[in-house]
């Protein structure tokens, strides 16, 4: 991918959180490396799927990208501009170009505002409309595009179903015509029958507006469906990154393999006959990660080297990166 086509770039991004202290007198601050030295790029019009177990740092990466969480080290570049330390007014202006779609369609809409107020708010705070009324035409167009009924504008969010609310959330994110959208598990809270509606909408919008997505999910089936490339995260570390097809068909990391085999397939004969790799144990605590490769405690193939030294993320095949000594 050429530099010009790159919209978002992360270079060695590490995010840490202070989580309490250790010792009787608490002299040792405990740090949680939620994201550890993660690098990747996203091209214009591309969807990068970000997959990992709960607590692996997916949302944290999204938040770091949106400059919601301070980065301990590394740089974030957006549209050729280093935004790692942008704050205040410039950050506010930057918001026009990058938006977020939330996981929870119930909690992410202020219940005290009508849909029109909600969707027009970005326009108003950026001076692109002077009032709710002034923004009406734009709002109506957005709502229609997102498949909401015409009378939706004057209703409150709680009068909508989950899928409809998620559409409101998407309309709101689109109001500023951003180039980049972080979609943090946008369909996890939705029912299967509704999930497809939203996924389709996101895909259609991407095509129409040449949007770039960071699509965060833990449902590999959906990710496969929507992503051009996929990044797999394990305990704050990027373990594999590559084109969707490669990830599924030419897996380079044992964790990805296990993950794929854990996803049940709704086809009884097939599912019964599949060989599943059931991992033992639990995801390690990121406050106190194991030495060496973080996956070694559960990896069925772990060797001595894995326990001593963390494998670097290497390009194992063109465009296909993995962090494993064994591939």
């Amino acid at each position: 991918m050429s530099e010009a086509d790159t919209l978002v770039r992360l270079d060695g991004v590490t995010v840490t959180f202070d989580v309490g202290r250790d010792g009787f007198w608490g002299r040792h601050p405990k740090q949680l490396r939620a994201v550890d030295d993660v690098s990747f790029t996203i091209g214009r019009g591309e969807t990068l799927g970000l997959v990992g177990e709960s607590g692996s740092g997916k949302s944290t990466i999204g938040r770091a990208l949106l400059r919601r969480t301070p980065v301990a080290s590394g740089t974030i570049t957006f549209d050729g501009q280093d935004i790692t330390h942008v704050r205040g007014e410039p950050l506010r202006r930057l918001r026009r170009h990058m938006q977020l779609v939330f996981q929870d369609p119930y909690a992410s809409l202020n219940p005290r505002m009508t849909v029109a107020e909600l969707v027009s708010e970005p326009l108003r705070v950026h001076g692109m409309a002077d009032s709710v009324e002034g923004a009406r035409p734009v709002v109506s167009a957005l709502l229609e595009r997102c498949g909401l009924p015409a009378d939706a504008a004057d209703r409150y969010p709680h009068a909508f179903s989950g899928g409809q609310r998620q559409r409101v959330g998407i309309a709101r994110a689109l109001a500023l015509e951003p180039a980049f959208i972080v979609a943090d598990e946008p369909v996890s809270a939705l029912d299967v029958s509704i999930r497809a509606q939203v996924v389709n909408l996101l895909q259609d919008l991407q095509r129409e507006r040449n949007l770039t997505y960071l699509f965060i999910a833990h449902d590999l089936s959906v990710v496969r469906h929507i992503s051009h490339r996929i990044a797999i995260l394990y305990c704050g570390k990027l373990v594999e990154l590559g084109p969707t097809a490669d990830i599924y068909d030419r897996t380079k990391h044992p964790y990805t393999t296990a993950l794929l085999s854990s996803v049940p397939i709704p086809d009884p004969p097939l599912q019964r006959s599949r060989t599943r790799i059931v991992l033992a144990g639990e995801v390690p605590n990121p406050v106190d990660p194991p030495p060496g490769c973080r996956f070694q405690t559960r990896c069925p193939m772990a060797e001595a080297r894995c326990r001593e030294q963390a494998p670097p993320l290497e390009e194992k095949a063109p465009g296909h990166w993995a962090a494993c000594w064994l591939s």
Partner: protein
Amino acid sequence: MSYQHPDQYSAGRAEAEHAEETEEARSGRPFEIEAATHGGPFRELVRDKLGMTALVVLVVLVLAAILAPWLAPSDPNKIGPRIRMRPPVWHGGTWSHPLGTDWQGYDVLSRLLYGARTSLFIGTVVVLVAGTAGVLYGLYAGYRGGRADRWLMGWVDVQVSFPGLLLAMLLIALVGGSVLSVTAILAVNGWMVFARLTRGVVLAAKERPYVEAAEIVGCTPRRVVFTHILPNLITPLATLSVLEFARIILAEAALSYLGLGIQYPGVSWGLDVARAQDHELFGNQWLILYPGILLSITVLSANLLSSWMRVALDPQEREKRFAGRAIRGGAAAEPGT
């Protein structure tokens, strides 16, 4: 659901305010059609007889306090050397002193009315002053977060640990007891709860996805605080204010009772209980009972009102109440299979 009807627009808004809690409580299950026709908080109040009574009592008291100069048969401090201990009307007294007079010839009704004035005035002003101060403090601490928050709330912890009543007594003894000094001292003593509550709500609200959404959309911090966070405060603040109002009234009365609060020519129920207790513990105890009972009723009403508010403004509580009623009311007796 529709909000077309203009009258129901505001009701819908009130409903909307609480919708989020409901849903959170139900682990994100849609709670779609909360019809405005099922009534908002006020519908609930009408159902809640105690809450309604409390509200009526408070309204009557407030009116009586405001209108005291016109309602009172005489100046509460007008001495009546020749009309001491007149009985109330129903014991052969006259209408010029409906509740009779005390040993000083003071008109009992007038003193009660003016006492209400003092109590309600101090209660209201202290809640307003302490509430405003506390809310601003809490907003600042909560929204700034970090070190500022730790220091500011550290101070709140410290001041909360002060023996407030004792220090209030001391201060009043030193500066003298008047409506002004009592109000000021109680306000200085009473803002911390508001600060704590506000900060708590702000911290919680800051974590709400919709607040984050507002920030991501590019709202200024000001707008985030005032448009998105502050409305969350309305319900808990309203409830707390009424509770604090009750507590302040009690505190004023206690101080005045101890002789370290309102003093002549001020009129206060607490002071009158003390006066009457000094004077009539063995004789006409009704002089002790009148102001005491009125004080209790006022505080009780405020407490009832706040507990009603808690229920009425909290959809979950409302739901619980409804369920109890419905089951008792035999709603369950519907045909089954």
